[in-house]
């Protein structure tokens, strides 16, 4: 148990929090992070201010003293926040079905579902420290033996890893995102009875006390495994975002990819928007790194100033992330952003692109899609939703001098992590624009952030891209559309339905476009122009990436093209795939539909021609 020298420590069990679920440390217990500055006493803050907020006495009882005058907050205080009352349901883990893919852990917006892997022997030893036999059995039953951690390693080294997925009951908001992304039926939502809550609280406590994951089972090559490491959890649970918020997940993953490399030795500057509201509303802070907000419009300027100051102090090696929504980056802070990108400074920009001003209730931004029903371009009799076309910040950023640019989504976990890691290693400005589902403004369910982000990519609403100036001197060398399905084609054809997926299909799945369909489900003219806009955007990217050159005129279907050699590999073969920097093992699920399933539980969908080219070019080889 987290030792609280101070008996009144919030980092210790209490009547309200008997199992100390609300405590510092995500996978293992940690102490408060004290600071040595005359402006804030962390212990006093956590144990009196946070306590008062948790007890509901803050508003009336806490004095207007110097501690509140600057509204400073220690790091990680959101860990002490108890959300266990917000949702009626909570996920339950079904160990037998789990493959250890880590998707649930990675894609939860609230750091509420956690994974751990330990060598079987050590695990048994650790387990034996739980005194009560019934408790021990209860906890042991929640550990699984997925092939990835158990059978695979056992074959190689003789020891298998036991794996578990545990819910932090104080942080889970019941969005069911984890259940939806688990393609293996290893999670389901259950009602929170007293007994359920008791079990989950206990399990979470045992989980934190059983020790860290065993490094030997955590492969550095598998980016999705990074959340098995404590240092990846720079964004702890307890933020005030909506259940299932796509922004939360994106921020968590950005923090994870930065944290595994830099620990807590970096900083965040944030533009006002949903992100600042759910991560900095007094007194709860989910970050473990220094963070500041100035205003809505000036974060890029702020970041440039901080970079200069940090460089002056010899802190060149400490990354700075500058984050903001599409409103902040495409619109009001646009010139400041452009200035920053033109400066050549080593600052990383992270855009949480909800295509709308989410924080203030959904006003249109220049990132809003044509046809979207947003405030300031409300769907009415005369004007049917936004009529202007979406502005593309990634393309604009690309045209700045030597800037690394990526457009990605949290749902495309490898692409996302790679984008962040490459942005960090790039010695100059970088911008990562991330599609983030916003439930209330997009009109989608709480569990749909990942699915909608995938569909946004599949339907060309939001193409993935990486523009890395290190890759060459021409745009086509630098720009990669890898990760988009059917990169050579105008639209992707879903192999399951044999139907093309276009922007209209995407629009049909979200409430923000509902008014663009009549009772019979027919789309409006506005939506057709929206589709055309997305197609033109996609074609432009294809052209820039040099993908249109080899195509015959008239958008011939890929099937009509002569299939390349690739005689050496066939459906079902084990392969290794080169993902820019790493080899990842996997299997060809279907040579015809162009699908690879990788061992990190991601899949790659390209059209069959591209797949065969990749084989010819040695990007995919037999294992």
């Amino acid at each position, binding site marked *: 148990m987290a030792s609280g020298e101070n008996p009144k420590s919030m980092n210790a069990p209490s009547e309200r929090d008997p199992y100390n679920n609300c405590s510092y440390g995500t996978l293992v217990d940690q102490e408060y*992070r004290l*600071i*040595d*500055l*005359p*402006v*804030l006493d962390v212990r006093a803050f956590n144990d009196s201010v946070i306590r008062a*907020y948790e007890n509901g006495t*803050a*508003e009336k009882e*806490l*004095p*207007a*003293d*110097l*501690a*509140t*005058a*600057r*509204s*400073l*907050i*220690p*790091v990680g205080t959101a860990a002490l926040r108890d959300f266990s009352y917000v949702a009626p349901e909570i996920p339950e883990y079904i160990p037998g079905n789990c493959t250890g893919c880590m998707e649930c852990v990675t894609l939860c917006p609230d750091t509420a579902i956690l994974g751990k892997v330990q060598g079987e022997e050590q695990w048994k030893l650790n387990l034996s420290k739980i005194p009560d036999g019934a408790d021990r059995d209860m906890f042991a039953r929640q550990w699984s033996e997925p092939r990835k951690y158990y059978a695979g390693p056992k074959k190689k080294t003789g020891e298998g890893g036991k794996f578990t997925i545990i819910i932090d009951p104080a942080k889970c908001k019941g969005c069911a995102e984890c259940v939806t992304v688990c393609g293996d039926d290893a999670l389901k939502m259950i009602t929170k009875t007293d007994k359920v809550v008791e079990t989950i609280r206990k399990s979470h406590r045992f989980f934190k006390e059983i020790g860290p994951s065993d490094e030997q089972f955590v492969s550095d090559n598998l980016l999705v495994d990074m959340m098995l490491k404590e240092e990846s959890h720079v964004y702890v649970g307890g933020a005030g975002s909506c259940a299932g918020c796509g922004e939360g997940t994106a921020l968590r993953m950005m923090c994870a990819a930065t944290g595994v490399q830099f620990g*807590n*030795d*970096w*900083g965040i500057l944030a533009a006002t928007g949903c992100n*600042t*509201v759910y991560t*900095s*509303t*007094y*007194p709860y*802070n989910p*970050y*473990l*790194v*220094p*963070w*500041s*907000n*100035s*205003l809505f419009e*000036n974060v890029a300027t702020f970041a440039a100033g*901080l970079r200069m*100051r*940090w460089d002056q102090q010899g802190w060149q090696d*400490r990354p700075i992330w500058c984050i903001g929504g599409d409103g902040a980056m495409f619109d009001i802070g646009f010139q400041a952003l452009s200035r920053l990108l033109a400066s050549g400074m080593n600052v990383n920009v992270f855009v949480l692109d909800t295509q709308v001003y989410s924080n203030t209730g959904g006003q249109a931004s220049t990132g809003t899609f044509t046809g979207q029903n947003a405030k300031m371009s409300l769907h009415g009799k005369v004007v049917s939703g936004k009529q202007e076309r979406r502005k593309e910040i990634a393309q604009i950023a690309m045209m700045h001098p030597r800037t690394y640019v990526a457009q990605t989504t949290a749902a495309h976990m490898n692409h996302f992590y790679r984008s962040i890691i490459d942005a960090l290693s790039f010695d100059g400005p970088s911008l990562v624009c991330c599609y983030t589902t916003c439930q209330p403004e997009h009109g989608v369910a709480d569990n749909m952030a990942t699915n909608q982000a995938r569909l946004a990519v599949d339907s060309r609403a939001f193409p993935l891209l990486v523009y890395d100036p290190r890759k060459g001197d021409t745009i086509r060398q630098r720009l990669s559309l890898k990760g988009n399905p059917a990169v050579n084609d105008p639209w992707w054809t879903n192999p399951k339905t044999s139907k093309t997926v276009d922007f209209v299909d995407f629009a049909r799945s979200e409430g923000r476009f509902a008014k663009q369909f009549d009772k019979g489900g027919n789309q409006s003219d506005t939506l057709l122009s929206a589709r055309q806009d997305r197609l033109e955007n996609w074609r432009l990217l294809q052209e820039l990436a040099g993908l249109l050159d080899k195509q015959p005129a008239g958008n011939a279907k890929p099937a009509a093209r002569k299939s390349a050699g690739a005689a050496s590999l066939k459906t079902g073969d084990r392969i290794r795939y080169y993902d820019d920097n790493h080899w990842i093992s996997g299997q060809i699920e279907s040579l015809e539909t162009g699908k690879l399933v990788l061992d990190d539980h991601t899949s790659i969908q390209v059209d069959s021609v591209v797949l065969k080219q990749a084989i010819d070019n040695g990007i995919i080889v037999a294992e």
Partner: protein
Amino acid sequence: MLYTISGKRLPVVFHIGARALTSHSLNVHAGHDDVMSVADVGWGMLFARNAQEACDLALIARRTAEATSTPFMSIQDGFLTTHTVETVRLPEPEFMKDYVGDPSDKLINLLDPKNPLMSGTVQNQDSYMKGKIAQRAYVDRVGDALLESIELFAQKTGRRYGLLAPYRCEDAEYVLVGMGSYMETAEVTVDHLRQQGVKAGCLTIYCYRPFPMHEIVEALKHCKGIAILERMDDPLSSTGNSLTREVKAAFCDALNGQMGHAKIDRIPMIYHGSAGLGSRDVRPGDLIATFHNMSGGGLEYFCLGIKHPLALYVKEEPDLRPPGGFSMRGHSVGGFGSVTTNKVIASIAGDVFGKDVQAYPKYGSEKKGLPTTYYLTIADSHVSTHSELDRVDLVILNDVNSLFSGNPLKGLVDQGAIFMQSPLESPEDVWAHLPPHHRKTIRENSIRVFFVDMVHIAREVASVPDLQMRMQGIVTLGAFLKLTPYAANSGMSDEQVLSGVEKALRKYFGKRGEQVVRDNMTCVQRGYSELKEVDRRIIQQDP
């Protein structure tokens, strides 16, 4: 932004050339509406009247800011002060270091990964107001810390500032109140009025935030009337512009004996006016009119220096330059290098001949090729008037077109001199080419006329083509040295004077290379030696 800086208690000091705001039109010149519009952002605000004060208050502001974690604006009048060359005593770097202290002792890094913190957070009903009110703990210290900084500055430099600078207020019946450069003009105007028996005084406000309410009431409570001048106009406020409102509120509290005021039993009549908007000239005559307006129970709100029903009528325009002062005015064209020459001359008069100087150009917003006017006053003591010169001893005509448009001889004193550009060889020809009405003035007022072909000299000397145009101006310096008594009276040898001149040229042109410095020096020497005079005998006749 300004609010977030004070809210985070970041002790930054902004040095501001206060400037008129773009409203019905754009104007780049002096105005106080910009800073007054941000007087409620939680920053300290100090106003300087001249270059020396801008320099000193900058240090006082910095020290106070760091002592109280409170940002400060250190304000001077845009262009009027920012672009005026004046004699100043620059504080020594060692003194500044010692006075301000090491910032790393006081500054707190709120973005340090080793001491991680979150700042700039969101607060709701539960906490926002607490934080805002708790900020008073910082702000309450500002007044005392400022006084302490002022006191220490006085001890170390002998230059004593205050929150206010009352001038002849003790027994004054009428007092002019205001901030910025025209308040120095006000002091010499008060001296002039006192000589005429008017019990005038003036009160400069150095510190606007924190607002020195007690000190202001104390300084003014005995007056019959006060007039508050402001470089802005915001009539919808009804009760007056910013400073007026604050002064009225202070008197209201004093009448009630509240907010720490000693109770008073009457309030002086409070007049208020707008002056100097967008660097509109504010002259001693305008200020005299302000006093007369008060004593005559005139307009409660008035404006100065324009024609408008609310404007005061100017009856008298005295010459309030320091005794023995010398003034010159130049008429030139942007790009001739004359404005720089004016600064060089000021530097030489100040640094080489040990005089007090005040030099400033009157720019419009136009770029090269359009007329500019520049002014220079040289005196044995500080030049307190900050108005355009209308009495001058020397007129320089770099631009001869000005003879045909406008009146460049305006205010030229009897027995004054003209130094002009002319491509003509003979004095007779030069005289013949002057317009008849100017010839008349010159003859009647016994004005001397000097000329040289500055264009020709610059063209011959400039080794870099793009400097041919710009080096015309510097020829003027040669004429200055010859026509004014400063070199002769300095007791220096010719070599000493020349080496002083060269030093000044190097200061301005040194970074452009040695050749440019030498070329300028040649221009000066040729201006000195090739200068010709139109003889009095020629002047006596019309051609």
